[in-house]
């Protein structure tokens, strides 16, 4: 079994699907010759040729638009946006066409495409390179939004996203690309979409996180575990639609919920989770729902990004507040 980083797992998933399914193509800025800004498409052009791994002009609306067109005509495009801060020109295509073609054509056309983009901060990058904009996509009907938090989930969920008959925005936590490795078998087994993953089982408090913050959340849970506080740690994985069954069941067990995300707090995905838990599990809540999030400001430049992103200490503080309520 190969020991791979998350970015290698992503390459592996794309290569696996391209090998198996000739309708899968890759396109984006520098994805061919260069292998992608984060090397996620490294070697794919050499292996599958320029017809299937296409370098595009620097035009995100075009990348999304071409992908939608190809997808409606039987291809399975995987488009790469270099950084999440440059994704906005593509958003119009995603909202107005990718998310709606199935409805607009009464099911005659559908859009089996994946829009991949790195997401989140923590790599000391300049402005526009560290955005966490998953809530924006989560708010769009007709589009799935997925954020893996480990090499194995990146592999399994990307396979599922490519095979899904509808558009998926696949946001990859840049900070986790090479943070560590895991054993991932290149067996072509997809993981289910719209499903949360329980990473640690506990009784005292439910922690829900996704993307890179799962890393800090697990560290916080491990530290609190040393004090005998047991946390049920849930990786949301599919940010929209949310698997509320798993979350509600956990909250009904623990009675306490803390949501951890890197994105700004205001109207973040955490707000939706908190609202639904308040609606459906209020009789089980023993304490107010807590959120540990980024601040409602643009992601700061890299000297201050670690003050912006929730640290393990901030996560622990947020959990304690809910435990002591």
């Amino acid at each position: 079994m190969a020991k791979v980083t998350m970015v290698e797992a992503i390459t592996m998933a794309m290569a696996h699907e391209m090998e198996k399914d000739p309708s899968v193509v890759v396109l984006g800025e520098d994805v061919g010759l260069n292998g992608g800004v984060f090397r996620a498409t490294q070697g794919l052009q050499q292996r599958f040729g320029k017809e299937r791994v296409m370098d595009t002009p620097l035009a995100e609306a075009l990348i999304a638009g071409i992908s939608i067109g190809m997808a409606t005509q039987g291809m399975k495009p995987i488009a790469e946006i270099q950084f999440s801060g440059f994704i906005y020109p593509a958003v119009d295509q995603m909202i107005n066409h990718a998310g709606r073609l199935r409805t607009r054509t009464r099911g005659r056309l559908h859009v089996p495409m994946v829009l991949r983009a790195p997401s989140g901060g923590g790599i000391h990058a300049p402005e526009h390179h560290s955005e966490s904009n998953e809530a924006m996509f989560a708010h769009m009907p007709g589009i799935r939004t997925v954020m893996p938090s480990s090499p194995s989930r990146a592999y399994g969920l990307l396979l599922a996203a490519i095979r899904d008959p509808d558009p998926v925005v696949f946001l990859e936590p840049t900070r986790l690309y090479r943070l560590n490795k895991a054993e991932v078998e290149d067996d072509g087994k997809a993981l289910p979409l719209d499903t949360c993953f329980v990473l640690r089982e506990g009784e005292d408090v439910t922690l829900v996180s996704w993307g890179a913050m799962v890393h800090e959340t697990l560290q916080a849970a491990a530290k609190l575990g040393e004090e005998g506080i047991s946390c049920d740690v849930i990786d949301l994985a599919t940010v929209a639609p949310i698997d509320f069954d798993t979350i509600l069941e956990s909250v009904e067990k623990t009675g306490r919920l803390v949501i951890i995300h890197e994105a700004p707090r205001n109207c973040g995905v955490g707000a939706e989770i908190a609202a639904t838990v308040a609606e459906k599990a209020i009789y089980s809540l023993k304490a107010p729902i807590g959120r540990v999030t980024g601040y409602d400001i643009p992601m700061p430049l890299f000297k201050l990004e670690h003050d912006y992103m929730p640290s393990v200490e901030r996560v622990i503080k947020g959990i304690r507040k809910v435990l002591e309520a």
Partner: protein
Amino acid sequence: MRTFNLPDLGEGLQEAEIVSWHVKEGDIVKVDQPLLSVETAKAVVDVPSPWAGKIAKLHGKNGDIIPTHSALVDFDIEGGATAPAKKEEAAAQKPAPDAKKGTPIAEDSGTVVGNVPTSNAVVAETAIIRKKQKKDPARVKALPSVRILAKQLGVDLASIEPTGKNDTVSADDVRRAQGGGAPAAAEAPATRWDLPAKRADVKYGVAEPMRGPRRAMHASMTKSRSEVAECTLFDDADIHNWQPGQDVTVRIIRAIVAGCRAEPELNAWYDGEKLERTIHERVDLAMAVDTPDGLIVPILRKVESKNAQQLRSDLNRIKEATRNRSVSPADMKDPTITLSNFGMMAGRYATPVVVPPQVAILGTGGLRYDVVPVMGGIEVHKRIPLSITFDHRCITGGTACRWLAAVIKDLERPH
């Protein structure tokens, strides 16, 4: 000797500026040890050492701009054992991740901006897709507010039989449990006051226009407030000596007539603009009557000329007329003095409002038993509370006092 050239730091940038060196000539360095920080157009990045060995020469100092692929550092490689082959050297100068295992060359940083944290640590993890679980029947369902109440009262929620909606423990359940399981006692604090029902005839929260008598009241009271200098005097008439069968209202009207005989200045009209006063001989007494539609003030004409029976029949007539709303405007025109007999419902004294051009209004409160000193002892007597408001612009306090004294004197007569 090996020369390490500045690698392409991404996006085809042609050059980089040296920010600072982390090593100096003569240092022994390991693979991946940061050699220097350089600034590209996008960010400051550290350049790691591709080889282990001794630094022979640094090409450039802080602030220098180095073109990509030009010499950066000369290395003395020990013993030549780890000296890279030519092919690998090329790889070192143009980093690629596919370098052969164990060959100490620069790793691709994996990004064109910033610094992607990298490690070879293998992390084992478990990720469970949870199947639907059976619900724990012992699980307590309660609102957070109820949980707080239980905490405050020191009640264990799990020990309580839930009676709330959806099998939840309610606040009442918690209070009952705290009361030691005696349900009746625990229910003592009533949650609702025993109050009369909400008035069905009232439109709450809606601005309604003032109509009819209420509009008239607004006009007359505003005029009074802006013109009259009101002064009110209070006293009581002791009616302990009344013979049986006295008609209270008729007796009060007779007393007003008596007062006006003594001090006719209160039975008058006053024109403040002309500074003129007209004292009347006749007493046209306005009677303030409360109705659902508002205050209606019909007039008993020439009460000074009538006897008790006539007054009573007049009173009954106007009472009936106000109830039917058949009082004509003529019936309410030009009174000389007013009586407000408000005490039937509640109230002892008041400060009734004089309506110009009249100059006085008498208010009578409810008849009541008072403790009064009588010849060094105490007795309980029935008394009528009196309040006379007069227009101080044209009537002196002394006049008003004398008028009230005459009223009291007449009221206190046995018949």
